[in-house]
């Protein structure tokens, strides 16, 4: 098991390395010259060369990459071309707002999805199950940006209860978090429900019933423990996706988070910032993937034995 964890961590680091190379290559094949953009038309060529040297853009690409990588390891992603501030400072000041949204939302999703899915699966084809199914299908079919606009129409224009722009205290959290949570909850419930139904059909569950255990014991000891494996993985995997998806939600609500910063940086061709944000999101994704895989391997005896048998 320890061997597997070590391998998985190594793989994670390697993935990040490859992502960083790809990202650097992508960002350097971008059309448009940010320095020209920054300097404007009337700056003399000498001045432009001076700026290039200051940002290290006169060196060959691989040297630029090596320099960028060693700095990135120290969480130094260079300076923003537009505002001249350190990228890491810019991103860190925004990160907490994005984590606030995604963290609270994931927690709410988990708290809501597991019990609902458990009841729906255990009382399959009951009215509760059917109603849940239809409601989740409707929510699932609603794009986040449209859901956000509906909430704005209802709770900010028709009944002006909540603010819709920027961050000004806890009430600003309500609409963005409601948007993220409710639109994502549907798929969480559905996947968890089908996972639990699958588990209910497993031989060990039938055996547990045959041993004379009651519903509650079977549910908690056998079904929940096994069905929670994929749910937990899903849970871990979804955080970076919420952060990624936050570009749209943050743009609609003018939320001072990383997603909004990414959006403005893309439109302003501020590629040190774009690079920095994407690398941080990649890092978060690799961390959650790795953790998810390790948990699955640890909890699922079939996969665990597969790993330990091969060592």
């Amino acid at each position: 098991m320890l061997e597997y964890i070590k391998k998985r961590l190594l793989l994670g680091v390697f993935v990040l390395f490859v992502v960083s190379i790809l990202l650097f290559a992508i960002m350097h094949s971008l059309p448009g010259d940010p320095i020209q953009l920054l300097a404007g038309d009337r700056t003399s060529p000498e001045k432009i060369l001076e700026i290039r040297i200051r940002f290290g853009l006169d060196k060959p690409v691989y040297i630029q990459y090596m320099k960028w990588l060693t700095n990135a390891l120290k969480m130094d992603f260079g300076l923003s071309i537009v505002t001249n501030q350190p990228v890491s400072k810019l991103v860190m000041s925004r990160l907490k707002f994005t984590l606030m949204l995604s963290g609270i939302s994931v927690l709410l999703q988990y708290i809501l999805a597991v019990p609902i899915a458990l009841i729906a699966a255990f009382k399959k084809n009951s009215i509760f199950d059917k109603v849940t199914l239809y409601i989740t299908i409707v929510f699932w079919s609603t794009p986040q940006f449209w859901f956000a606009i509906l909430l704005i129409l209802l709770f900010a224009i028709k009944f002006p209860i909540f603010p819709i722009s920027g961050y000004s205290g806890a009430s600003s959290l309500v609409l963005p978090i409601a948007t993220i949570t409710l639109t994502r909850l549907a798929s969480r419930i559905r996947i968890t429900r089908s996972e639990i139904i699958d588990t209910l059909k497993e031989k060990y569950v039938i055996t547990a019933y045959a041993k004379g255990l009651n519903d509650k014991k079977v549910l908690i000891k056998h079904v929940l423990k096994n069905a929670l494996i994929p749910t937990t993985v899903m849970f871990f995997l979804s955080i970076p996706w919420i952060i990624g998806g936050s570009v749209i939600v943050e743009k609609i609500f003018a939320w001072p988070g990383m997603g909004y910063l990414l959006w403005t940086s893309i439109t302003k061709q501020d590629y040190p910032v774009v690079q920095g944000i994407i690398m941080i999101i990649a890092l978060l994704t690799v961390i959650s993937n790795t953790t998810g895989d390790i948990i699955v391997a640890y909890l699922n005896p079939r996969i665990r034995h597969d790993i330990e048998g091969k060592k």
Partner: protein
Amino acid sequence: MAGSKIKEIFKNISFVSGFMIFMSVIVCAIFADYIALYPYDEMHLIDKLQKPSLTYFLGTDMYGRCIFSRIIYGTRIIIKVGLIVTLIQAGIGVTLGLLSGYYGGVIRKTIMFITDITWSLPSIIMALAIITVLGPGLTNVIIAIALVGWAQYAKIIDAKAQTIKYLPFVEAGRVLGETDFNIMVRYILPNLINQIIILVSLTFPTAVISASGLGFLGLGTQPPAPDWGVILSEGIRFLKNAPWIAIAPGFSLVYTILGFNMLGEGLKEILEPE
């Protein structure tokens, strides 16, 4: 036998309503020229920001373009994005997932490594990066979404194939001397149909949502093309005075995506009767 199966299909409410919604969207896409009242980019500046009426069923936007006609033409973009993205993603993902789950070892490591890399970035972020390079536009959006979304197929098919390959009937097939290809396609794949259907019914709407989302951000289909995301983003500035601009494409998106989700749901109930 076959007759009762067909009856069962027609009794399934999700499938029938989903199928009808889906067909209605396809009919709109094919016959848009006959259904729409005006060309999608025809401006009637005198009639700008008109409420829904008999002349303009869903009202007009800030250039006096007929929203109804724009929505109808927009179905073409939706169908195109959904179909192409789903085909590419399912093709790449299922093939790689099967190979990886069945063979294991070095093959699995290599495939899962590639999968991990595409998986390492949320698709919208990856799509944003690709579009920043390729530039905005529908084709680039399709390429970006298709290339970054197949990882979930590969991951889920791989995980399921790994557990299935240890089941007795697969062992039996191997003992009977079936080739690897046969075991994968005839023994394992049929057991993955439910997963694939679930994934496809996720992919189509996800592709539509991503593409319209990118359109909404101004990176996808460019105006004046009647992309529903583009219409929505134009409508967001007029939410107070002309909310119909945003409402029409919003509900159209939900209608279409709901249709495909219900279709998938119905198919699942029919194919997986418990």
